């Protein structure tokens, strides 16, 4: 039933989502938003994986997506912990405020 | 035997570092004496006729790099090893009047230096040669850095990086040869020789420059000498002696052993340029020496002039020239050591090295004056001193190579006289002045250092034949390739 949708569409879609994620990372200074955008990027990859796996008719792709999800979860856990730590120390989550380390 | 010569001082130096004995200087002196005795034993039972290296070993070290621990000595190596083992004890003895902080480190470094130098002179493997070459740089760097004089940090670092840069080019050259060795790549000397000779002419030219620049910086000859006067001036006098007496010879040795036989066509193509540069260096060095005010610096420049002559003579590719270089290396090593020691004595007693403020020392210290006179005569190449033998042979070879260059190079005996006599007059002659009154004559241990020097200067001058014979066959052997070349051209 999906055979009407060519694979290229999915590729394009996921690329666009991915790029939006990148755009967000570049565009926003709020660490949480940036972080969310990274999650968006990962989801774009997931979508692509699934698309490929079903077009290649191979389960491995979808299994891989599980791992990505696991990793994403782990990253979120750690990431948010770091965010809170940062907020605790710097009283801000603006990514451009933190530049004591330079040169 | 060679292995012993190399590792015994290393061992001793490590012990000095670890145990920090009180009598470091004495221990070091004894060690160096043992070295001297061993090397003399070798020299006496040496078979100069036999062309393959003697008293050596050859064991694989890093086969993946084609690096073998191959050491051994032919006549050329032996002469320079002798120079090293002879000078090091004298240098150590000459330091007895100094009170250096951390003496064990100081003497340990000197011994380590000796290890490296003997290694350089006896290495039969390209990469091994390079290793020792660099290793020699480290102790002398620290000697200068820790016990040196004004502004030493900058100067010594410049010295280090500059010479390192040069030798890295040498490394590239060697690797280039290594990659052209036939079959299983190796750094074995003969293999490198064959590889180099097999190269097409223009590549030989490139390799020539890669190697020559390294050697030129080490010697140093004009215009690669900029590190030298500062370093000689700033280094503690023992360091200066090591630098000028022995280390300078590494460059010449490199040319003789690792340049001339390796890339004959490259040398044939660029030799003339190199000789010309060296000859310019002679005049340049002498002229600057004439106007120097600092005693030590003056001798530094004079050494540039002398080494220029040596390298020019070496690059004429005639047995005469190379033999002259050999004997002159020996003689220059001894003489320059003596001169620097005299500088040290003078500056220790008067706290100045400015010629203008010295004078009349001859009244107070006739012995010193006489010794200085003899050594000075040696350095201006008066016949019956060791200096003459070398300079005669060198000028001879250069003159045969190219009359004009020969004549210009000959000017060294005039200019040399000009600045040395000036130095002697300004420091020794005249009336005593405020600085030099109460100048004490040589102490016993100073005599023990200087009398051997004087004796050697004269003895070598009167009867150099044994020394010349020692290296003649080896030199002839190294230069055979050229006679073959010219034969093939004819």
């Amino acid at each position: 039933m999906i055979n009407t949708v060519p694979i290229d569409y999915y590729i394009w879609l996921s690329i666009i989502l991915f790029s939006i994620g990148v755009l967000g990372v570049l565009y926003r200074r709020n660490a949480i938003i940036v972080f969310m955008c990274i999650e968006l990027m990962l989801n774009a990859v997931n979508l692509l994986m699934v698309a490929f796996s079903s077009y290649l008719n191979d389960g491995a792709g979808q299994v891989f997506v599980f791992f990505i999800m696991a990793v994403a979860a782990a990253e979120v856990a750690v990431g948010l912990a770091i965010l809170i730590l940062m907020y605790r120390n710097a009283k801000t989550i603006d990514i451009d405020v933190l530049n004591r380390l330079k040169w | 035997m060679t292995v012993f010569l190399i590792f015994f001082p290393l061992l001793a130096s490590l012990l000095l570092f670890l145990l920090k004995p009180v009598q470091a200087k004495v221990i070091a002196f004894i060690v160096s004496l043992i070295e001297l005795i061993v090397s003399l034993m070798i020299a006496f039972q040496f078979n100069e006729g036999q062309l393959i290296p003697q008293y050596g070993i050859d064991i694989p070290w890093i086969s993946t790099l084609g690096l073998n621990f191959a050491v051994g000595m032919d006549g050329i190596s032996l002469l320079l090893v002798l120079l090293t083992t002879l000078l090091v004890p004298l240098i150590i003895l000459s330091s007895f009047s100094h009170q250096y902080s951390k003496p064990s480190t100081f003497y340990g470094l000197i011994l380590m230096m000796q290890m490296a130098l003997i290694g350089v002179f006896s290495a039969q493997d390209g990469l091994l040669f390079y290793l020792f070459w660099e290793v020699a740089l480290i102790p002398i760097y620290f000697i200068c850095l820790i016990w040196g004089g004004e502004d030493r940090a900058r100067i010594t670092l410049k010295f280090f990086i500059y010479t390192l840069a040069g030798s890295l080019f040498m490394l590239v050259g060697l690797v280039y040869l290594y990659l052209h060795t036939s079959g299983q790549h190796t750094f074995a000397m003969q293999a490198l020789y064959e590889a180099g000779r097999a190269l097409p002419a223009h590549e030989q030219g490139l390799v020539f420059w890669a190697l020559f620049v390294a050697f030129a910086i080490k010697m140093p000859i004009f215009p690669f000498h900029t590190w030298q006067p500062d370093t000689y001036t700033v280094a503690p006098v023992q360091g200066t002696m090591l630098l000028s007496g022995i280390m300078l010879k590494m460059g010449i040795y490199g040319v003789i052993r690792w340049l001339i036989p390796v890339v004959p066509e490259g040398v044939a193509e660029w030799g003339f340029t190199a000789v010309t540069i060296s000859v310019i260096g002679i005049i340049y060095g002498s002229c600057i020496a004439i106007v120097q005010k600092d005693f030590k610096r003056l001798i530094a420049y004079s050494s540039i002039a002398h080494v220029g002559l040596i390298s020019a003579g070496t690059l004429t590719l005639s047995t005469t020239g190379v033999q002259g270089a050999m004997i002159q290396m020996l003689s220059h090593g001894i003489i320059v050591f003596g001169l620097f020691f005299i500088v040290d004595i003078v500056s220790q007693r008067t706290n100045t090295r400015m010629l203008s403020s010295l004078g009349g020392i001859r009244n107070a210290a006739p012995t010193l004056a006489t010794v200085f006179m003899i050594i000075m005569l040696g350095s201006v190449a008066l016949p019956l001193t060791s200096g003459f033998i070398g300079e005669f042979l060198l000028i001879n070879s250069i003159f045969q190579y190219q009359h004009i260059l020969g004549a210009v190079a000959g000017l060294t005996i005039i200019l040399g006289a000009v600045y040395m006599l000036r130095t002697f007059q300004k420091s020794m002659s005249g009336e005593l002045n405020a600085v030099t009154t109460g100048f004490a004559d040589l102490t016993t241990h100073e005599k023990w250092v200087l009398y051997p020097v004087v004796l050697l200067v004269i003895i070598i001058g009167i009867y150099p034949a044994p020394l010349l014979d020692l290296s003649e066959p080896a030199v002839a052997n190294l230069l055979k390739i050229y006679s073959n070349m010219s034969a093939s051209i004819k």
Partner: protein
Amino acid sequence: MTLNAFYFLSFVAVLSALMVVFSKNPVYSVLYLIITFFCIAGHYILLNAQFLAVVHVIVYAGAIMVLFLYVIMLLNLNEDSEPHKSALLRVVATICAGLLVIVLIGSLKGTEQMIQQQPADTGIGLVKNLGKVMFTDFLLPFEITSVLLLAAMVGAIMLGKSDAVKR
């Protein structure tokens, strides 16, 4: 009909994704992101990855985004506390992203050369098949993931809890 579904889902997904980036209030961003995730889940269903779709909704919409919301509440971020990049930077950012899209799409031609254009059986997305793959071929990664989660857990706790020792 699937094609239309695809178009619709994609449209919503992209739109809400953009809103994630551009909406001023972090809370809105979170909500938009959740919408996007739902759309992606829809795509999974279109692609016969039903099980994955479910897991996706549970993990992301259910767990991760809630976590985000918590944090935002915790730090009580809202519109006015929101830092802004300078206009110039925004333009540059947009241009960069645009370039990225172009380049990617440009370099992603040639799908016709793919081994297999059409899915044969539509059952791979079912739990049974996935389970097979996961617990035969991908057993080790699955186990290793536990190490990963363990590490993350330890780390999060370590950073999260304030040390009585220090203060």
